[in-house]
Structure formats: structure tokens, C-alpha cells
């Protein structure tokens, strides 16, 4: 009987079905576009490299001189994926003989970039590459120095740290370095008698170039820059805070993060809008079906009135009217479930919410009718 009655006045029931299905469809579509935006955002974040540089705050124009403990702390951070450093200190030859005089030993963790920065032409045996990131005792020297010291690639030289470019430190321990390559240069700030060694020689290798007390002051980075691990780009703000904490207020962290923000901001705004829309739509489509169900049930006023007039108990009228509406809403909910399953985004809570609130609305509408005093209900009858 109930289904017959529903089919005779199908407008509201169909509207209810439509709204319940839309209540599943809209959040599903929105959710899909939100997920798409998230992947886009992730791709954007991962596709940009943030370059970082440290700039001294206190004396502008002065030499860059970053304490090694600071630089090393930064280079060990998980969020830092690559760093480049340069440092130098005076040295002198023990073998071949001290006649060559004192000069600068330059340390770096990347000989290729070093060559680029200082306009050096690298030359090393064909098919080999030079790795300065490890702690091997190796060096690169100029062709002129090779000639002057009568060495060739593959030979060893013995050097020691120096107190200054003028004064030798005879107590400094020896360091044997294998020459793995040479350089030529036309226009460079690197003198012909300089040696270029891995950074490790300054810190780790027998503490050589830094042992003597007087030399410690040379142990600073003269260049230090780094990039942020792309996977950490999203948390750059916290990374930046941590970095600034490490370097203190004497240093300013300069980064290219602005470029990242400029790229992601429009998408993040869009995402925010989409998420707000998602919430609004979800809530709206819980209450809209409830409202329609309420109206649908209120349409049963005369039905309820006549049944009570004919002596049926209001409680019986209530249960027997509410039950089929509950069934109808659950049926619609199942159809919605099928739809959402077909669309590949099962949102059980959403559907449960829609069904539950609509059933409640039906209960309230019919309950109000059945609880109304009969005279009042009779006087407010329709028709």
C-alpha cells in the first residue's frame, strides 16, 4: 500500500532519491578533484629545488667565514640534500723540499664545482673521475706546480700545515697526498702553487691541516651553500626555523623558497576552496534530504488524521507510518551506496549520515502529527 501511495504522488519521493544520489555524487566528484589537486601539489613541491645561502649579518662585505661546527651541523641535517663548501689554510711542502715556499691549501667537497667557481681547467687521466666527497688523501695541483716539483699524476707529495702564509710550523704532522689530477688556468684567483684537497683533509685526516693551535683560526668555511631535500619542501618553514636556530642571528638564511611559494600558492588556495566546498556540500546534502523527507511525511497529515479519526491508536499510526519511510530512505541509501561503489569512492559515513538524519526527520514529522491534539489536527486538515 505504501509503495502504491508513493507511486501515486511520486514528485517528492523522486526528488528525495535525486537529492540523496546527488549527496553521494557531489562529494565523490569533489573528493576526486581534491585528490587530483593534492597530487598536483605534491608534484609541484617535489619539482622545485630550494637553494639556500648563508649571508653574514654583522659585517657586510667582510670575508665569508662560517664556523665549521655550524656548517657541519647543517650538512648532517636530514632535510639538507646537497651542500657545497670551500675552506683553506696555509701549507708548505716537506717533500719535495721546502723551497717551494708557503701557499694555500684549498679544501672542498666538490672539485668540479670548485673548478667552475674559480675558472680552472681540470685535467686527469682519461676515464677517471675525481671524488672529493670522501676522506682519501688526494690532491689536485697546477701543471706549473707539477713541473716545479717534478711530479706527475699518480705521484705523492708530502705537505704540512703552516701557522701563516709567511711562517712555517715545524711541529705540524705530515700528510701524504696522491696527486690525482691537475689544472691549468688563465684567469683565476688560485695561485700556481696552491693545492686542492678534499674537505676531509681539513677535519678528519689525521687532523693534519688543523692540529697546530695557530692554525685553528683557518678552519672556517669560506663558501657554504646547500639545497633542501625536495621531499622536505612542504615543511620548508619549519626547516628554515631549524636552520636559523643553528646559524644564530649573526647569519641570515637566504633561500629561493619564494619561487616555491609563488608556484604552489594558487593551487593551495584552490585546494582550500575545494575542501570548504566539500564540507559545505556534505553537510548540505545531509540536511536537504532530511528536509525533503520531513516535507514528504508532513504530506501525510490527512492520512494520519483519518486513521486516528477512525479510532486507530496514535502510537500505532506513528509506527506503521514511520516504518515504511524508514524502509524507503534505507532503500535510497543502498542505491546511493551502489552509485558510490560504481564511482570508486565509498563514503559509508556520508551515506549513513544522510540516511540516519532523514529517518530521524521522518520520525519527527510523523511524530509531530501523531502527537498533535486531535481537534487541532482536525481543524488544520487539508482540503
Amino acid at each position, binding site marked *: 500500500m505504501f509503495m502504491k501511495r508513493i507511486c501515486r504522488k511520486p514528485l517528492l519521493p523522486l526528488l528525495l532519491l535525486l537529492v540523496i544520489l546527488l549527496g553521494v555524487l557531489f562529494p565523490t566528484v569533489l573528493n576526486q578533484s581534491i585528490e587530483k589537486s593534492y597530487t598536483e601539489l605534491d608534484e609541484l613541491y617535489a619539482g622545485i629545488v630550494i637553494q639556500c645561502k648563508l649571508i653574514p649579518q654583522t659585517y657586510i662585505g667582510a670575508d665569508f667565514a662560517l664556523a665549521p661546527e655550524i656548517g657541519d651541523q647543517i650538512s648532517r641535517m636530514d632535510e639538507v640534500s646537497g651542500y657545497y663548501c670551500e675552506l683553506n689554510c696555509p701549507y708548505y711542502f716537506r717533500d719535495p723540499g721546502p723551497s717551494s715556499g708557503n701557499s694555500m691549501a684549498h679544501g672542498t667537497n666538490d672539485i668540479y664545482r670548485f673548478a667552475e667557481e674559480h675558472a680552472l681547467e681540470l685535467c686527469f687521466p682519461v676515464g677517471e673521475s675525481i671524488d672529493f666527497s670522501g676522506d682519501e688523501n688526494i690532491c689536485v695541483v697546477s701543471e706549473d706546480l707539477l713541473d716545479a716539483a717534478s711530479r706527475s699524476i699518480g705521484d705523492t707529495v708530502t705537505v704540512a700545515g703552516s701557522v701563516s702564509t709567511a711562517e712555517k710550523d715545524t711541529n705540524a704532522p705530515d700528510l701524504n697526498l696522491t696527486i690525482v689530477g691537475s689544472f691549468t688556468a688563465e684567469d683565476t684567483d688560485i695561485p700556481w702553487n696552491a693545492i686542492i684537497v678534499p674537505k676531509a683533509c681539513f677535519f678528519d685526516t689525521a687532523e693534519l691541516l688543523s692540529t697546530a693551535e695557530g692554525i685553528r683560526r683557518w678552519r672556517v668555511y669560506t663558501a657554504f651553500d646547500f639545497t633542501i631535500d625536495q621531499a622536505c619542501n612542504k615543511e620548508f618553514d619549519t626547516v628554515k626555523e631549524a636552520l636559523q636556530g643553528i646559524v644564530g642571528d649573526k647569519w641570515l638564511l637566504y633561500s629561493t623558497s619564494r619561487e616555491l611559494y609563488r608556484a604552489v600558492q594558487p593551487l593551495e588556495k584552490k585546494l582550500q576552496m575545494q575542501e570548504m566546498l566539500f564540507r559545505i556540500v556534505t553537510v548540505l546534502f545531509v540536511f536537504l534530504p532530511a528536509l525533503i523527507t520531513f516535507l514528504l511525511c508532513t504530506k501525510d497529515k490527512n492520512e494520519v488524521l483519518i486513521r486516528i479519526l477512525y*479510532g486507530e491508536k496514535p502510537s500505532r499510526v506513528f509506527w506503521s507510518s514511520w516504518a515504511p519511510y524508514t524502509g524507503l530512505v534505507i532503500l535510497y541509501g543502498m542505491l546511493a551506496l551502489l552509485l558510490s561503489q560504481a564511482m570508486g569512492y565509498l563514503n559509508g559515513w556520508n551515506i549513513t549520515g544522510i540516511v540516519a538524519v532523514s529517518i530521524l526527520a521522518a520520525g519527527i514529522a510523523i511524530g509531530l502529527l501523531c502527537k498533535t491534539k486531535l481537534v487541532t489536527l482536525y481543524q488544520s486538515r487539508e482540503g
Partner: protein
Amino acid sequence: MSDLVLRNICYRYPKTRQMVLHEINATFREGTVTSIRGQSGAGKSTLLYLIAGIDHPVSGQLLWDNTPVTDLSAYRRNVVSIISQSYLLFPTRTVLENVCYPLHLKKHPHNEAAEEAKQLLQSVGIDKKLYDRLPEKLSGGEQQRVAIARCLATNSKIIAADEPTGNLDEENTQIIVKLLQRLAHKNKKTVIVVTHDPAVAQMADKQLQLAAGNLIDE
């Protein structure tokens, strides 16, 4: 003989102070049509609500078969039927289903109920081709006849009609009046008709007048 007796009935609507009915006394006899006339606002409908068991009087008693009516649900289920100016048919049930309803309520088997309903509809002159229509597709006169057929299906002894011809033209009014008379005289029902139409009042066996909440014999 089952009579309906009103004894010192007073009534006022909830949350109002004004008594709408003052000490109403009346007896409605089986097999007769009684009309109640009165100006608009006199309390005719209100009196009929009490007769139809829609509410309890504030004071006074309703006696059916010499026993006071206390369980209004049972009274409505077994004794009285109301006919309204607005017909009051189930809007989403067909003509036949409307008439079958009281029979189903009384647990008549479905086939029998349908047969009986058809006979009742025939007796009030409703054409077969209207059986499966919804009430809204019927004329006012036809709807009121269906309502009367449904009343008959309840087998109730009292028919309380509030302006049953209020929305009908003269021809249909005549048909309904004849039907009500037949119900009283042939089916031995107690028919009480509230009307402001003198022509309708005239056909009653007994005519009462309600003025300012008091019932007067005419």
C-alpha cells in the same frame, strides 16, 4: 433503542477562557435525522467534534446506550463516523481503497472487503469507472458520496456531518440529503447534520438551533 444523549456539556478550546458551549443538553434518536443550525461562530462545529468523539467536553457527559463515553478511540472506532465539508478522503488512496479502509481495519478478508466496498459505492451511486481514481479526480458531490460510503463501511451507528453540502451545488446537495435521510430511515442510523443552509435543515426530522453556545429546539 440506542440514543446519544448530551448532558450538561460545556466546552472551551485549550488555552482559551471563553466557553464555546454552555450546558448543552440534547438527545439524538436512532433512525432520525437531526439538524443543527446556527450562525457562523455559534459553535456548531465544536458541538459536532464532541459528538464525533474528537475531544472530551470540559464538563458534562456524552452517553451512548445509557453509558458514558470515556474511551474516545473506541467510541470513534465502533460508534461514530464523521463527514466533513472537505470530504476528508485519503488523498493517495483510490476511491475503492478509501472505502475498503474501515473494512481492512476490522480485519475483513481482502476479497470480501473489496466486494462489500463495491456494493456500498454502488448504493451511493458511484460509477464503477471511478473506483480506481484518486479522490482529487472526482467532483465534490462524488467525493462526498464516497465519504458516505466509507462511513457506511464502518457500520457505525452515528453519522456526524459537518456542513456536508457546504461545497456542493443544489443538485448534489439534494443527492446527499436524500442519502442521509436514507441512512437514518432505512439503515437506522442516528444522523446529525450541522448546516447553515435552511433547505438542508428542513429535511431533518428534528431541527435544533445553536445560538451563543446554547441549544434551542425550533
